[in-house]
C-alpha cells in the first residue's frame, strides 16, 4: 500500500470541507454568531490541516495552521467577526482551494500568494487580538498544544481530561506511547515512518496484535490520531502519555464507542456543554473516517469516498458517471430484448400460453420501472447549481456597492447531472447581468420608492418534461427605447411597433450591450448571445419578461435530461429517422398548388401566409427508393436555430421516447445528424439535426450545380463543417 493511494480521497474530502466552510462563512450571523457554526468552520480547517500534514502538503498545512489559529480565537470569542474579517476568511478559503488544486495537479502552489495570505492573517491577528500567531512549524500543531489542552480531551480510549492537561500543558514536548492494535506489518512500517515525521521515535517493539511506539513529540494527540486515521481505523490506535502509561493495561477492554462516550461526558462536566458537542462531532468525524476507509478498501487503487454533510450520517454513495451510464445502457438493452420477446410471444395462443403471457406483461412492467429508476440516478438537485451563487452575489454586490439579497427556490428540483454542469456558465452570466444592469444602487432604489436592498431570486421548477429555471430581479427592468436605439446603431432592422417580446430578444443579438460603460462584471456584449447558444445547445430556450421599474425575469426552459429525447419517427424509403419532437411544429400533406418552384431546383411551400423552403430528406441524405412526387410526401414543418422550413418525408411512424446515443464515441460527427438511437427491433436509427439538415441541403445543392465540377462530396462537406 502506498500513501499516494489516499491522495484522491483527501482531495475530495478537503474539497467538501472547504465547500462546507464557505457555506458556514456565508450563513454566519455577524451580530450573534452561532457557536456551532464557528466550531464547524474550525473543524473543517483542522481536518484539512491534519490531512495536509500527513501527505506532506507543506504550504497547505502551514496556511491552514495559521487560519485554524485565527478561527480558534474566533470561536473562543476573542476575535469578533466583522464583514471584512469574513471577507478575509473567504479569501483564505479560496487560497486553500487554489493550493489544493495545485497539489492535485502535482504542481507547486503559488508561493507568492502563500506569503501574502500568511501576512494578511498575521496582520489580522495583530490588529484584532494583539498577538502574533505562532509561526507554522514543519510539524503540525506546536501551537495546537495550547488549544488542545484548554479545549477538549481527545476522543482516545483510556484517556481522561486530567491526563491530557497535565502532560500536554507542562511543556511543548511530551512522550507518548502510541499503540497499534492488529495492524499488519506493511501498514506498520508506514505508520512508524509517519510518526517519525511528527517527532522522535525513541523505542518501538511488540507484535502484530499490539505494537508500541514511544514517541517524543510536540504534536497533540488528536493530531496524531487525525494523521493516523488515514491509514488505520481509530479503534486500532491507542495513544497514552508516558507518565500514565505504566499503569495502563496493555489490553484495553473498553469498546472505543463507550470510551468516547465517557470521555465526552466527563468533558462536559469539566469544560462545559460546548466541548461535549465538539467531542461528539469528533466522534462523528472518526466514524466518517471509518466509512471512508472501508470504501476505499473495496475500491482498491481508486478510492472514492463519501462523506456525510456537516457530521450527519451518510446515506449516499459516490459513483462514477461511467458506471451509471453503463447500467443505463444495459437496462436499455434489456428493454429492447424484452420488446423483442414480447413480439414473439404475442403470436402465441393466449389460452394455452396464459402463464407465459402473464409473465411477459409482468416483465414488461418491471423492465419499465427499472428503466425509470435507473434514469433517476443521473438526476441531481438544483441545489448543486444554486449553492455556488451566494458567494458570487455577495462578492459582486460588494464590488458594485449594491445591497442584494439572494433568494433561492426549488433547490430540490432535479435535473440531469450533465445538464447541471452545463447550465452553470449561462446562469452565472445571467446572475451577473442582473446584479450589474438590473438591480440599482441603494440610493436610486430609495428614490424610486423601493427597498434599499435589491432582491435576486433563483428558482427552479418542473413543468411537464421540462425544467424552468428563472433568474428574477426587482431592478430597473429593460429599457425599451434604449434597446431600440442601440439596435439601430448596431444596424439591426427594428421598428417602433415591435412587440415587447421581440424587443427583449434583441439583447441576444451578438455584440449587443446597453451598458453605459463597460465594467469588469459585464457589458462587453459577448455574453447574452453565448448564453442563448449554450442553452439552445442543451435543447432548451430562453425567454425574457421585463417591466420597466419593476424588474426582469429571465426564464430558461430545458429538457430534464439529454439521455432521453421525445422523438417523432419518420420513414424515408426503407430507412427510419428520428426528429426531435421539440423542433416539430406541425405536419401536413402538401398539395401541388401550394408548392412553388424557385430559381434552380429550389422549392418553397406555402403554409397559410408563409413561404417555407423545402428540404427533402431523401436528397439531403441520399436515400434510395424514396417517394419523389412532392404531393405524395408529407411535409413536416420544423424549426431549428430560428430557421423554419418544411422537411419532406415519406411517412410518419409515430412518437416515442428514445435513448440518445452519441455517434462520436466510436465514429465521428455526421452532417445533418445529431446522434443515434436504438429502436425496438435492435436496429440503429439516426436522430436528425434540424438546423444542420438545412445547411447540409444547401451544401448538397451547391455541389450538384453543373458549373462546379463536383469531384468529391466529402471534401465539400468537410469545408462546410469547418466553422463549427
Amino acid at each position: 500500500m502506498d500513501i499516494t493511494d489516499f491522495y484522491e480521497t483527501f482531495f475530495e474530502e478537503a474539497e467538501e470541507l472547504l465547500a462546507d466552510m464557505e457555506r458556514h462563512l456565508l450563513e454566519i450571523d455577524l451580530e450573534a454568531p452561532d457557536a456551532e457554526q464557528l466550531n464547524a468552520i474550525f473543524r473543517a480547517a483542522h481536518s484539512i490541516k491534519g490531512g495536509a500534514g500527513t501527505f506532506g502538503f507543506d504550504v497547505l498545512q502551514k496556511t491552514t495552521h495559521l487560519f485554524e489559529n485565527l478561527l480558534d480565537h474566533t470561536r473562543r470569542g476573542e476575535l469578533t467577526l466583522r464583514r471584512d474579517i469574513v471577507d478575509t476568511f473567504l479569501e483564505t478559503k479560496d487560497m486553500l482551494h487554489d493550493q489544493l488544486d495545485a497539489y492535485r495537479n502535482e504542481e507547486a502552489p503559488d508561493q507568492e500568494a502563500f506569503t501574502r495570505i500568511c501576512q494578511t492573517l498575521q496582520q489580522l491577528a495583530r490588529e484584532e487580538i494583539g498577538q502574533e500567531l505562532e509561526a507554522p512549524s514543519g510539524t503540525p500543531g506546536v501551537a495546537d498544544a495550547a488549544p488542545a489542552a484548554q479545549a477538549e480531551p481527545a476522543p482516545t480510549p483510556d484517556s481522561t481530561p486530567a491526563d491530557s492537561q497535565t502532560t500536554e500543558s507542562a511543556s511543548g514536548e511530551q512522550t507518548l506511547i502510541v499503540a497499534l492494535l492488529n495492524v499488519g506489518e506493511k501498514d506498520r512500517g508506514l505508520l512508524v515512518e509517519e510518526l517519525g515525521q511528527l517527532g522522535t521515535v525513541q523505542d518501538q517493539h511488540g507484535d502484530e496484535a499490539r505494537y508500541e511506539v514511544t514517541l517524543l513529540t510536540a504534536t497533540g494527540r488528536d493530531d496524531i490520531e487525525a494523521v493516523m486515521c488515514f491509514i488505520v481505523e481509530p479503534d486500532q490506535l491507542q495513544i497514552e502519555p508516558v507518565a500514565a502509561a505504566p499503569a495502563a493495561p496493555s489490553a484495553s477492554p473498553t469498546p472505543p464507542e463507550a470510551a468516547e462516550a465517557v470521555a465526552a461526558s466527563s468533558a462536559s462536566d469539566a469544560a462545559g456543554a460546548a466541548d461535549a458537542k465538539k467531542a461528539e462531532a469528533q466522534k462523528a468525524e472518526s466514524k466518517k473516517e471509518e466509512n471512508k476507509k472501508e470504501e476505499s478498501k473495496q475500491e482498491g487503487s481508486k478510492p472514492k469516498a463519501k462523506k456525510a454533510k456537516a457530521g450527519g450520517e451518510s446515506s449516499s454513495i459516490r459513483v462514477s458517471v461511467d458506471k451509471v451510464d453503463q447500467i443505463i445502457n444495459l437496462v436499455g438493452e434489456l428493454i429492447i430484448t424484452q420488446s423483442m420477446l414480447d413480439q414473439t410471444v404475442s403470436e402465441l395462443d393466449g389460452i394455452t400460453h396464459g402463464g407465459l403471457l402473464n409473465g411477459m406483461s409482468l416483465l414488461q412492467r418491471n423492465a419499465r420501472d427499472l428503466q425509470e429508476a435507473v434514469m433517476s440516478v443521473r438526476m441531481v438537485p438544483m441545489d448543486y447549481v444554486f449553492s455556488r451563487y451566494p458567494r458570487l452575489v455577495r462578492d459582486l454586490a460588494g464590488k458594485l456597492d449594491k445591497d442584494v439579497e439572494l433568494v433561492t427556490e426549488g433547490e430540490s428540483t432535479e435535473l440531469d447531472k450533465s445538464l447541471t454542469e452545463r447550465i452553470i456558465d449561462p446562469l452565472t452570466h445571467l446572475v451577473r447581468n442582473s446584479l450589474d444592469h438590473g438591480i440599482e444602487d441603494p440610493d436610486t432604489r430609495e428614490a424610486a420608492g423601493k427597498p434599499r436592498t435589491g432582491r435576486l431570486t433563483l428558482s427552479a421548477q418542473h413543468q411537464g418534461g421540462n425544467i424552468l429555471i428563472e433568474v428574477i430581479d426587482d431592478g430597473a427592468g429593460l429599457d425599451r427605447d434604449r434597446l431600440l436605439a442601440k439596435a439601430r446603431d448596431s444596424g439591426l432592422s427594428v421598428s417602433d411597433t415591435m412587440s415587447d417580446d421581440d424587443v427583449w430578444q434583441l439583447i441576444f443579438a451578438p455584440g449587443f450591450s446597453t451598458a453605459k460603460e463597460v465594467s469588469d462584471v459585464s457589458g462587453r456584449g459577448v455574453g447574452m448571445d453565448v448564453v442563448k447558444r449554450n442553452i439552445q445547445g442543451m435543447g432548451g430556450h430562453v425567454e425574457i419578461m421585463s417591466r420597466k421599474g419593476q424588474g426582469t425575469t429571465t426564464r430558461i426552459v430545458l429538457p430534464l435530461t439529454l439521455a432521453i429525447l421525445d422523438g417523432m419517427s419518420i420513414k424515408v424509403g426503407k430507412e427510419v429517422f428520428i426528429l426531435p419532437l421539440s423542433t416539430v411544429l406541425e405536419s401536413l400533406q402538401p398539395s401541388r398548388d401550394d408548392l412553388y418552384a424557385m430559381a434552380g431546383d429550389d422549392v418553397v411551400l406555402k403554409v397559410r401566409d408563409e413561404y417555407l423552403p423545402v428540404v427533402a430528406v431523401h436528397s439531403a441524405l441520399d436515400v434510395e427508393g424514396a417517394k419523389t412526387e412532392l404531393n405524395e410526401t408529407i411535409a413536416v414543418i420544423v424549426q431549428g436555430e430560428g430557421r423554419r422550413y418544411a422537411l419532406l418525408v415519406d411517412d410518419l411512424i409515430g412518437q416515442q421516447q428514445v435513448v440518445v446515443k452519441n455517434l462520436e464515441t466510436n465514429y465521428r460527427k455526421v452532417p445533418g445528424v445529431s446522434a443515434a438511437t436504438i429502436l425496438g427491433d435492435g436496429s440503429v436509427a439516426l436522430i436528425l439535426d434540424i438546423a444542420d439538415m438545412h445547411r447540409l441541403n444547401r451544401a448538397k445543392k451547391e455541389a450538384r450545380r453543373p458549373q462546379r465540377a463536383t469531384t468529391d462530396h466529402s471534401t465539400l462537406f468537410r469545408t462546410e463543417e469547418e466553422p463549427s
Partner: protein
Amino acid sequence: MTSLTRNADHAASEAHNREFLVFSLGEEEYAIDILKVQEIRGYENVTRIANAPEFIKGVTNLRGIIVPIVDLRIKFHLDTVEYGGQTVVIVVNVGERVVGIVVDGVSDVMTLTPEQIKPAPEFGVTLSSDFLSGLGSLEDRMLVLVDIDKLLTSEEMALVESVGE
C-alpha cells in the same frame, strides 16, 4: 544442450511470439493482432450513414453501443463484395474506440515467432505499407499482417475526426 537450457530458450522466444487472427479477403489471407479483437459476429442490421465514404457501411448496435462498420473488401477494392449468412464482422478495439470490420471469413488463430515475421516491402497504392506490421510466412502460406490501429485511425479511413475540425 541440456534440456534445462532448451527450456529457457523456449521460454525466452515464447515471450516474443505473437498471436494473430487470420481472416480472408477474397483469395488473400490477412491477420491482425489477436489482442485487438473484441469479438466476432455476423453482419446484420447495419444502418447506412449518408455522405460517408463507400467503405463505411454504417453503424450497428452492439449491446447498446453504436459501432461503425467498415468493409475492408471495398476499401481494398476487391472484385466481389457480397453479404450473406457467412459474412463476418470482426469487432476490434482501437484505442478507446470500437469498430467493426467486414471480412469474407475468419479462418484461424496463428502463433508467429519473430523469425516468421518479415518486413513488408513497399506496396502499391491500395494498401500503403504504413498500415502493415509485416508479412508472416507460414510454410506455403503468406499472411499480410495489418496494423489495425494505424489503418483505422488513418485519415483516409475517415473514421475519426481529422485534426483541426
